[in-house]
């Protein structure tokens, strides 16, 4: 899936991943790749400005910790971040349901060579 398609939903993806446990940027990206079986093609560097923006918005908080001998910035969801995740998740579910209703009503047809 192209980066453009992911970009609009990056905040939701990051909030969802960090809602399970705090993590640093590389771990977030690794989880994103693993949970989507590598389907989401994202430039890794793009994640950091997004994390920083979510922190500016108060949805994330960060602290520096040494992990495996390397100093890393660990991000965790704040209470506002949990609220934002719930809101964005509801929006996403409404959107996918609406799109699904339309797409499912179209007659299925196998692509011909």
């Amino acid at each position, binding site marked *: 899936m192209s980066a453009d398609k992911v970009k609009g939903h990056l905040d939701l993806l990051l909030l969802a991943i960090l809602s399970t446990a705090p993590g*640093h940027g590389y771990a977030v990206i690794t989880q994103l790749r693993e949970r989507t079986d590598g389907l989401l093609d994202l430039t890794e*560097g793009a994640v*950091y*400005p997004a994390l920083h923006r979510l922190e500016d918005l108060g949805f994330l908080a960060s602290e520096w910790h040494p992990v495996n001998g390397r100093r*890393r910035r660990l991000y965790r969801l704040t209470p506002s971040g949990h609220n934002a995740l719930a809101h964005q998740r509801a929006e996403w579910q409404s959107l996918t349901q609406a799109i699904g209703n339309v797409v499912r009503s179209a007659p299925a047809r196998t692509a011909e060579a």
Partner: protein
Amino acid sequence: MNHPDDSPIGFFLDDLFEATRALPPRDARYLLAETEAHLRDSADAAMADGAQSYEAELGALAAFGTVDDLVPRESRRIRMPLRRLAGQILRSAMLLGAIGAMTVGASGVAAGLIYLIGGASSIVTVPAAALTPQDCARWLSQQAAANCHQAALSDWAFETVYGRLAVGLAGVLLLIAYRSCKRRWPGNAGLTPMVTDTAAALAFAVAGLWTAGLGVDAMIVSGGQGAGQWLSAAPVALAATAVYCTRLAKRIRQEPVR
């Protein structure tokens, strides 16, 4: 012998460091630290899968994206406050203004020497149309000159030399003010040295070539009359150009070799 940081990731971080100089120091520092940890983690993972160090680093960088992708996104997020940008420009302008004014002062010293050797006519020319009766009366009342033209020459040469010396003195005062500001607000750096050195080298080069051209023109057209005011400025400006070009060349040579 290669430096340990002479590696793809090391070079990338050098580029990132340079590109983040306009960001607030803390944001730049955090971004560098996070990026380095990320790239090393990514390269370590590739090496654990059997890749060689060099290929692992190249792979980590390819997945990460370019400095040109990353830094503008951070810049858009941060948006340097106008007040901070104005402070950077003001501080750099103070330094460059002080240096520029002191070079004008140095050209005043050179003009004074030319005046002592060649007299007032070597410094300035006075067109006949500029001599009004009122000016003549004033100049002749202030000095013992043979005629109005001589009095005008002396007055204008005096103004040229002492005017430049006054500008040079103002430059020294501005430099003192600059250093005082630097001590008082050490966190607010000026523009990057590459920018200020380039601006200074260009400004001095233009001034040097322009005044040299006018000086040569005066030598040819006016038989040297008034050439001193330009030829006193040109060597000083060209010397300053050479200093800033040398600084620039050193900075460029210090850039990591790829």
